[in-house]
């Protein structure tokens, strides 16, 4: 059913009895053209673009738990296209453009809110690096502005300007950046894909791949064997464990990233702000909670929870930057498992096994990539060619020396 203000009024007047399930709960068929393993944001987005844009509708999305139960439901909801390298920036800008039309595309309000992201610079070198990055953004067709200290002060006067250990020297602003309601993104994509005939099958864990003579022809699941012309794995957080079932090792480690939300507060922070002398990103949700995060804990983990040092460090960063938040209370914290890749950039590629495709390695930047990742993966699955904005995300780039290393940290996942 189509959503609109009218549908809400009509249903409101008739006791809200007319609403229909947002998605079906089908049993798996024996065969699909394409099976997507993983019903998270990227998997559901892939299903949406496959069915709507590339015309492939005989598709199943297999999800081990409930749809959207991975990092799409655990992140700090930031959407931005402010990358430096030519392997990344055009892709993320493509994603931004998809975000900008997503409500219309999905007929679902994912509450994409372009309130801007401001990256603060605390040294001349950092400001110069932001200038280089901002110019790269402009060259990709994105928007970017370099703010001097006065412009930063005008925009976010509540920061610690006068007594900071690392004084603010300026900032890189992307006005089109912002936040979106994370769960709604999963639900919106799921609803759309379902409406195009995609079977979204929850509580269905893939236990193995059917591989003969170097060709993948399907999957074994907790709900039976399913054959497929192509299998697209899209399970960030569990990539290594799933691909191990196909005998593959990946340039990926799993790490825990914690995220935090405060009690609901009247609006106090307009957009997203990041601290350049530490590691903090913070925004305020439409419900009033401050949503923030910092670095990964730094050790490999599948435990979906973190430890105190990072929690306290994030709070220190917050108090250093915004001492007026001292009496705001942390309400809840949680952890998500990140596919930390060896250069900090993702992988969207075929594998050496015919018919088996891989999408993962999103580190902790996967949320903003959701639309473009879905589109690019759908493109690859449908045409066997990489999408024009995702031509460098190859599995073999490490063997060839074509890393996409935004931070320059090298082959150590916990530094990205």
């Amino acid at each position: 059913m189509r959503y609109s203000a009218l549908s809400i009024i009509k249903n409101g007047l008739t006791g809200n009895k007319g609403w229909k399930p947002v998605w079906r709960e089908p049993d798996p068929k024996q065969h699909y053209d394409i099976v997507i393993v993983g019903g998270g944001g990227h998997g559901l987005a892939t299903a949406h673009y496959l069915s709507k844009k590339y015309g492939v509708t005989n598709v199943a999305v297999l999800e081990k738990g409930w749809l959207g139960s991975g990092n799409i439901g655990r992140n700090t909801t930031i959407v931005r296209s402010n990358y430096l390298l030519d392997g990344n920036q055009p892709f993320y800008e493509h994603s931004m453009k998809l975000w900008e039309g997503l409500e219309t595309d999905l007929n679902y309000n994912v509450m994409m809110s372009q309130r801007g992201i401001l990256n603060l610079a605390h040294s001349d070198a950092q400001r110069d690096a932001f200038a280089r990055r901002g110019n790269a953004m402009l060259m990709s067709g994105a928007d970017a502005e370099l703010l001097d200290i006065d412009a930063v002060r005008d925009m976010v006067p509540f920061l610690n300007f006068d007594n900071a250990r690392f004084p603010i020297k300026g900032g890189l602003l992307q006005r089109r950046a912002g936040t979106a309601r994370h769960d709604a993104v999963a639900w919106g994509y799921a609803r759309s894909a379902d409406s195009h005939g995609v079977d979204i099958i929850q509580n269905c864990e893939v236990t193995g791949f059917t591989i003969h003579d170097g060709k993948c022809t399907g999957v074994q699941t907790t709900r039976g064997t399913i054959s497929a012309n192509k299998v697209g794995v899209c399970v960030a957080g569990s990539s290594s464990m799933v691909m191990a079932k196909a005998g593959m090792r990946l340039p990926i480690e799993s790490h825990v990233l914690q995220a935090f939300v405060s009690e609901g507060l009247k609006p106090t922070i307009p957009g997203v702000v990041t601290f350049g002398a530490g590691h903090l990103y913070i925004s305020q949700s439409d419900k009033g909670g401050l949503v923030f995060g910092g670095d990964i804990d730094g050790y490999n983990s599948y435990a979906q929870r973190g430890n105190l040092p990072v929690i306290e460090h994030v709070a220190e960063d917050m108090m250093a930057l915004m001492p007026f938040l001292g009496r705001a209370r942390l309400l809840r914290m949680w952890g998500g498992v990140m596919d930390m890749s060896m250069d900090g950039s993702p992988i969207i590629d075929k594998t050496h096994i015919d018919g088996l495709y891989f999408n993962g390695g999103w580190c902790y930047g996967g949320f903003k990539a959701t639309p473009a990742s879905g589109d690019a993966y759908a493109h690859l699955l449908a045409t066997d060619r990489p999408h024009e904005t995702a031509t460098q995300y190859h599995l073999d780039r490490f063997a060839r020396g074509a890393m996409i290393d935004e931070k320059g940290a090298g082959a150590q996942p916990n530094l990205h």
Partner: protein
Amino acid sequence: MIIHHPLLGPRDASEFVHLGDATLLSRPDWQADDAIAQFHEYLYQRENPAGEYRELWYHEQGDRSWLIITRNTLTHEISSVELARDVARKGSAS
């Protein structure tokens, strides 16, 4: 987390820096014919297990020992801590 340092006893994990898989001890032969391929495997490709994992930590805020810790990545339970140098000398990194 608490790491039971073989020489110094229990220490808070925040004194340490985490590097990665203990297989980093097994550095390939630079003169092998397929040295680049071997080094690629060594540096980039990971088991990344959910469960028991042997990994390298460095006691940066302490005695600057590199340690090999066996830790469960699902529970964070630590079952053994060894000095990496001892392991490296034995030549049994995995």
